[in-house]
């Protein structure tokens, strides 16, 4: 079970350890492997085989979950290269990003208080666009320039963005359920 932490998720699917991945191809490999090992495929076999199937299917799910999402994929890739994104926290983020982030927060709070659904939706959209821009930038820093420290900084920006996106979506939901 300890091996789970250290495992190389790229190797699980036999794809090169790079940030840029073809989502269609990754998914195809995932489904193909799951089709073989899923416990339902071994339901009428003995207990040992069923337990092994559950373990393997869980491992494949975990690997796919991590590779599917750009944030976890980049964190994992950096971890494989020996860079811990969180401990890279001592490097300050660029001032303009911090400033931008503050203004998004203010925007979110104001829209939430006013119950302004359109404004929340617009904010969520611009956050998603910003995330896409960061992902494209990460392809360059991680795969082409291989500047891991700069990449770690961008990954941390992605983390901030994800939290903001979640908060914006929660605010939209909160409004819908009230």
């Amino acid at each position, binding site marked *: 079970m300890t091996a*789970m932490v250290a495992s190389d998720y790229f190797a699980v699917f036999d794809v090169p350890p790079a940030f840029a991945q073809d989502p269609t191809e990754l998914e195809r490999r995932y489904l193909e492997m799951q089709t073989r090992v899923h416990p339902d495929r071994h339901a009428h076999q003995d207990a040992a085989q069923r337990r092994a199937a559950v373990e393997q299917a869980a491992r494949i799910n975990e690997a796919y979950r991590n590779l599917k999402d750009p944030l976890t994929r980049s964190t994992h890739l950096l971890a494989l290269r020996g860079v811990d994104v969180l401990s890279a926290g001592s490097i300050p983020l660029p001032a303009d990003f911090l400033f931008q982030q503050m203004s998004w927060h203010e925007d979110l709070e104001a829209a939430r208080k006013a119950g302004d659904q359109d404004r929340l939706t617009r904010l969520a959209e611009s956050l998603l666009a910003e995330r896409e821009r960061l992902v494209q930038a990460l392809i360059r820093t991680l795969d082409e320039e291989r500047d891991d420290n700069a990449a770690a900084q961008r990954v941390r920006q992605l983390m901030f963005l994800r939290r903001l996106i979640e908060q914006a979506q929660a605010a939209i939901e909160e409004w819908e359920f009230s």
Partner: protein
Amino acid sequence: MSLLQILEPGAATEEPVIRRLAVGIDLGTTHSLVATLDNGQVRVLLNDAGEALLPSVVGFQADGRAQVGRAAREAAIHNPGATFHSIKRFMGRGTADLAQAGPLPYQVVEGDGMIRFQTPRGPLSPVEISAEILKVLRVRAEAALGGPLHGAVITVPAYFDDGQRQATRDAARLAGIEVLRLLNEPTAAAVAYGLDKGSEGIFAIYDLGGGTFDLSILRLRQGVFEVLATAGNTALGGDDFDRRLADWFLAETDLALTPAAYSELLAHARRAKEALSTVEAVELAFDAGAGPRPACRITREQFATLTADLVQKTLQLTRRALRDAGFTPTEVDGVVLVGGASRMPQVRAAVAECFGKPPLIDLDPDQVVALGAAIQANVLAGNRDGEDWLLLDVIPLSLGIETMGGLVEKIIPRNSTLPIARAQDFTTFKDGQTAMGLHIVQGERDLAADCRSLARFELRGIPPLAAGAARIQVLFQVDADGLVSVSATEESTGTGAQVVVKPSYGLSDEDITRMLADSLAHAQDDARARILAEQKVEAQRLIEATRAALNADGAALLNDAEIAAMLQAVQHLEDSLAGSDGEAIGLAKSALDALTDPFAARRMDHNIRTALAGRRVQEIGG
């Protein structure tokens, strides 16, 4: 039987075909039914009177005998305190959950854990009451199919939490049914539709049953049914519409009713609701005994207004599931309606408006879940006469642990694909600390008190070390049925910490054993004989499976010493089978299990590598 055989897609199987009798069971809030697949045809099994639907009503007579179905429903008026309707609502629930159920004519037994009701047979949990329904379906299936059941796929609302799933599984155990799989109702419905139509695309399954609402977003392609997101409410269903109508009637007529009379009024309300699906207006009347017989006329439109907020609640959850899956309503290729309550015209209209297309209603919404479950049961039993497909389901509610200050730390987020294994490290905060407690909860709220408590775990036997030095890795596992299990190891010394589980609403293994013994006519000796017989069959299966595995892959994956050790363990187990010492058989079996587990893991690894290698060859060739 070559149990460890790895199945190659497309390879012809040359084993003699032994059909195992497998059924799909829809254990519903309002009614239950059983279906099977034979000769490639899926069909619902009928009772002697030619009826498919068994009302999920259980009544206990003064002598303790149980009546199930229509008979119990008809006798309810004379026996309201011991006739249980919609018992599914209480599966895996505690007394605190009763508040939202409205007035009930039952006597509740005070206590912790799962709720229990007073009956002429003594205090009974919803698990035991549900088992009565399952027993009737098992007898029906065995009579129709002419032999003992190999097993069943039992459906549950996708939104059922771990406690509710465990309760369903335990009810099946009490009814003597081997559960091949707990399958989510919407997934079962998709199987029934998908195979009929061979369709690919994004589907929404809108399932409004008697007591629960489920909305699942599924993708169907390449033979894989993938659940992308699911949302729902286990306390929202057709019953709420009945209650709305009954309460409206009481307000209009200024009547005050006893709980027994109220449940009778509910039955009238249900019939009025059903009638409104085909006619524009009905008269709801109630005989209150002395005096004039109050009656009120209600139109379809009035009924729609009365229940608009209930329908809106379902649409909010629909939008949440769509957002989780990353789709907009118009991107959905088809909407499948499931559950009797989805027949209401205001529901159909609201769904059509939300998705911008009329829903699919080709299959009977009362039967579609059982039909899908039967198709899956056939696959799981190993009767592979259909196409190969796979169901990938998700966990409906996030799994977390309570941390300092009563906050929840999420370990597994909702809508993660099953099965799941995730490890989390913990440490001690006092010098020499040898035990720690963990509270496992399920739900989306930030405070543990607002989530559903699944279990409290105590980890004991942690080696006494300085504060913060012990590293306890807790492994959370959720299997394909959505059932949660937890294990722990202390990593700095490698000792396994002992896990003591106290399920919040579930039944312990001792409870189940006691209930099984109670339900067997001749208690102890019979039970022991049955357990020994089952143990021998299990052991025999393990021996055969091990031999087959050794023949297939032993030479490639094991060294001579490993093979010798395994053969010796097989011999040892065979020797123990000659006697009738259950303990000796158990020990010999565990010894062999310990050897076959790593072998099985290696074989599975080998299988995956072969899959990748096969793909590479294909790529080069193609």
